[in-house]
């Protein structure tokens, strides 16, 4: 049993292995020109060099920092609002247009506006990513609250809990599984937007800048190294939320 449990830690590596196998096969069978899609080996070599002696390490940390900031801002704003909106379906319906509208608008289309409001620095990148992530989190939290089990809310109400307390003590917890879905969606989206912003809004560092530069220089191993770093970062951040969820949400499905 314990040995089995140990083995389960290895499960994520199955996915990585499959990904690498498909990738290697694609390169090996020349389905894609190796100039355009380098082999995993040369990508990882580029990544290793970039991480140890190149700029990739710095870029990576910069992107981590921006993503964390924007996710944190998004979560702090979106979770309370999501609970509030979700608790009253009427209110939610009335702002739904705005939420769905902006969720369906590419962040890059928002760049000009954010640029004007926040300049070219980090603030634009963080705020535009936070904006995108907040919408997704808000949407998920509100949904979670709307689909919360009614009996528990009634139970709290009959105990004399105020609306606010019900929001906080019951709805928040009821919607936690969904909130975590939102957070995981949100952190991935924040990362995506940060990377895209680093690509298109003047940046001197970050994985997006790294991807952009490598792309401009046709340096495909470097480009895929940066992309891989971004993807791995995304997985890592998701894993973080998964772990937190595991610890806190023990009752899901019960």
């Amino acid at each position, binding site marked *: 049993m314990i040995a089995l449990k140990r083995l389960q830690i290895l499960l994520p590596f199955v996915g990585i292995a499959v990904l690498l196998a498909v990738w290697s096969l694609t390169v090996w069978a020349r389905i894609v*020109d190796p*100039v*355009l899609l380098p082999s995993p080996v040369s990508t990882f070599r580029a990544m290793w060099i970039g991480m140890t002696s190149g700029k990739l390490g710095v870029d990576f940390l910069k992107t981590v920092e921006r993503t964390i900031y924007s996710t944190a801002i998004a979560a702090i704003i979106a979770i309370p609002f999501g609970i509030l909106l979700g608790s009253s379906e009427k209110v939610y319906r009335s702002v739904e247009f705005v939420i769905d509208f902006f969720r369906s608008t590419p962040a890059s289309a928002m*760049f*000009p506006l954010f*640029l*004007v409001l926040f*300049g*070219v620095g980090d603030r634009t990148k963080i705020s535009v990513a936070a904006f995108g992530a907040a919408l997704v989190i808000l949407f998920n939290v509100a949904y979670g609250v709307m689909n919360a089990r009614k009996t528990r809310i009634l139970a709290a109400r009959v105990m004399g809990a105020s609306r606010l307390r019900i929001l906080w003590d019951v709805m928040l917890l009821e919607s936690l599984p969904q909130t975590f879905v939102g957070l995981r969606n949100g952190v991935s989206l924040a990362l995506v937007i940060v990377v895209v912003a680093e690509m*298109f*809004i*003047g*940046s*001197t560092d970050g994985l997006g800048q790294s991807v*952009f*530069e490598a*792309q*401009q*220089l*046709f*340096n*495909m191993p470097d480009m895929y190294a940066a992309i891989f770093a971004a993807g791995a970062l995304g997985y890592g951040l998701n894993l973080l939320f998964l772990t937190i969820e595991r610890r806190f949400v023990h009752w899901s499905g019960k």
Partner: protein
Amino acid sequence: TPDRAVAQDKVSVGVFPISSSLPYFVALERGFFKEQNIEPETTRLMGGPPNVAAMMTNQIEVAAVLVTLEGLNADVKKPGVAMYIGMHSQTKVWKMEQFVVRNGFKAETIADLKGAKLMSAPGPANLNTAKAILAKNGLKEGDYTIDQLDMGQHVNAMTAGTFDGGYTLEPSASMMIKSGVARSLEAGVISKYILGDEAANAYAAGCAMTSDFIQKRPDVAKRFAAAWRKAIDYINANPEEARKYLAKNTFTPDNVVDTVPMLGYIMVGDMTPKQVGELQKFADFGNSIGVVPEKLDVTKILQKY
């Protein structure tokens, strides 16, 4: 043969709809391709990377405009993938790249940009060119700040006053000048500061074909080049007439169509040794700033028609 008249030769062309693609639109609209019994299939591809990827995978045979340094780079990675048949020269007269400055910012020369917040056209080639030019004007890194910015944002950013000035391209430059938010400090800066001669041609972009196309359909390639030549001749002879094709086909606003500068279009076959030398010098510069990974003999990527 009888069916030759009916079935035209199809050529797939990647087109980045900017003013540099003008010869393509002129040839298309004035029927120069048709005269050559060629039917181009236009694929819009935004910028270098998709064009190069499409060339490498033979999804397009011609890129109507391909930035020289990007083409050179691609040729290093996969020799012969981009063979230039025509070049676009940019100089003080044939304005393309230039330094601009926000109205109200005190600067008469590039050297006055000390302490300024600058933007640059995107990509390492542009950024490093801008830095090199600034350096030639005695400005070290740290004397100014520079951020690369997507071309779509240049007019925005200047209008919003986010930057004091920067290294930008046409037609953005014309647009910001026209709307009164900025003025040009100096154009033709590559010629003057990089190539070291104000009169030198900076061949920053051109029209390229894949060697595959040239080898497998030599006759079609030749006829394509003939149409291209005719278009260039037409532009050089009737620049004002040619302009009107800009408005319709490229990202050039109507209000600057009449003022946006033309480029110096030339067929590779017409280039003098001196001009080839200028191209070589530009290529070497690309290598020196790390944008082209190897030193390359430019004649190897020129296809004369």
